[in-house]
């Protein structure tokens, strides 16, 4: 059932489509994020499965990749929509008007990566304490491990 993919591809000229391990992935520019998601929802992708992000620290020019996994229950298809945002003040439109269930996921991405979602009803920290500084899942945020001293070893880490 690749017609739905073709319809969406023809509607959005600046999207680039790939197939990664038998899953369809479409990359859209950050400005077209909301419009593409809206079109996908109308085309049959009723369920938003997940919103997450990846921090490509130095490997890419645009640092953060925001990923949304969509599921179409009527067509039994999956679609992964990705976009890339800049390193300074990363921001992208929020999907909350389309799927209220994206609220928690976008808050988590904001908490962990610092990506701002415009139009989000309540963009605050969700997993870390409110006064935490820093965004833990960024690559330049250390793991925060405590050196463990083993009695058997002679040296202290």
């Amino acid at each position, binding site marked *: 059932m690749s017609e739905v993919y073709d319809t969406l591809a023809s509607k959005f000229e600046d999207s680039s489509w790939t197939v990664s391990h038998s899953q369809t992935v479409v990359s859209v520019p950050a400005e077209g994020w909301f419009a593409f998601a809206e079109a996908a929802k109308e085309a049959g992708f009723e369920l938003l499965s997940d919103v997450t992000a990846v921090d490509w620290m130095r490997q890419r020019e645009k640092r953060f990749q925001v990923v949304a*996994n969509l599921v179409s229950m009527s067509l*039994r298809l999956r679609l992964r929509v990705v976009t890339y945002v800049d390193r300074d003040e990363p921001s992208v439109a929020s999907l909350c008007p389309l799927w209220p*269930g994206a609220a928690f996921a976008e808050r988590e991405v904001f908490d962990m990566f610092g990506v701002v979602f415009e139009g989000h009803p309540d963009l605050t920290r969700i*997993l*870390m304490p409110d006064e935490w500084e820093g965004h833990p899942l960024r690559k330049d945020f250390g793991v925060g491990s405590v050196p463990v001293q083993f009695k058997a070893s002679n040296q202290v880490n």
Partner: protein
Amino acid sequence: MNDSRNLETESVDIWIAGTEEPQFQPTDEGDQEILETESDLRMDTQMGRVVEDDYVFDDETDEDERMIVNMGPQHPSTHGVLRLQLELEGEIVRRSKPIIGYLHTGMEKTAEQLTFGQGPMNVTRMDYLAPLHGELAYSLAVERLLDVEVPPRAEAIRILMTELNRVSSHLVALATNGMDIGALSMMIYGFRERESILDFFEKTTGLRMNHNFIRPGGVAVDLHPGWKDDVAAILDDLPKRLAEYDDLLQANPIWLARTKGVGVITKEEALAYSITGPPLRAAGVEWDLRKAFPYSGIEKYEFDVPVGETGDVYDRYRIKVDEIHESLKIVSQVMDAMPKGDYRVPDRKITPPPRGRIDESMEALIHHFKLFTEGFKVPAGETYVAVESPRGELGCYLVSDGGATPYRMHTRAPSFYNLQALPIAMADSLMADTVATVASMDPVMGDVDR
């Protein structure tokens, strides 16, 4: 102003659960017959069929009359460290806000430090009631990036273990659900049954919980000799015990009054809030990843997907009981049709050699050493694999940059999304219904906070 709770249930005959006849029989002293009793207002009020309507329902209440109360994070009924901020107006919950993060463990960051072979040990502790499902999602994602196919015996063992895990997770859900609503015996029953399944897990994987059994490439060890007898004993025993639960709950008027019409999530709300699993199926949507996007050879087995109608607490409870029966069906089919062969991919670059070989062959020793210190490298790429865990769609989004550790591992946690519907389900309902609703959504905070 939507009433999410229908306060007038139809009258229910009083009889002792388990017996056929109503308790009261007409006597044969002449022409006496039991007259149709007029509804006793006191009895109806006590039974909850009629609620004295002195609650203030209209919207023009004074803001001062509302009180914000904190429930949790340390609370016996919130299923872990969930904090609910409730805005109460008398006994009615107007608005609520779940606040999470009290169990955040940084597992996604830890996953970037562990090798792909050590990954299951991390992922298994996310949804700690369905650990094998987490390991399965992760292993399937790694195998997809590696482009390997596991042997059929490994697939069958995986299905056997995950379906038994579904049974044990639903038993905990029923136990805590019952205990929260007041049926304290359910707690004892549920955990008693779970012990027999955990015994089997301990014999097979070595641990009662957090097994680290399903690894990329297959499973860790083969099933122990005599496993068929153990599984047959479980299959024999469990349906009788489930009948005990039905005796206790199915026709119990207290249970019905507290669960029917309570915590309703409609189909549109469920789709809007990305809810999957039993709450979605209770709302009437037939969506199960085992049927829609089958994994690990589950399409070979015959089973039904129970679907509810109204999306209330009762439907979610009923679906869990039915799903236990369906999973036992799958387990018995797997038991009969277990293929012989390897329990993991024979590729020595991915799976360690058998322990006996290490003494004999230098190459085996080197492989073992490299796999457990450095780990195997996975080609660059990204993928998303989802399995149907007892709580919903448990997915693993894995990005590799060609190294021995994941570049990014994200778990799509079902409870994380299911919790978002709590404010909707609990709006304008009574405080007591809050507990029932939270219990029926079955959140596991390890999954939510990761």
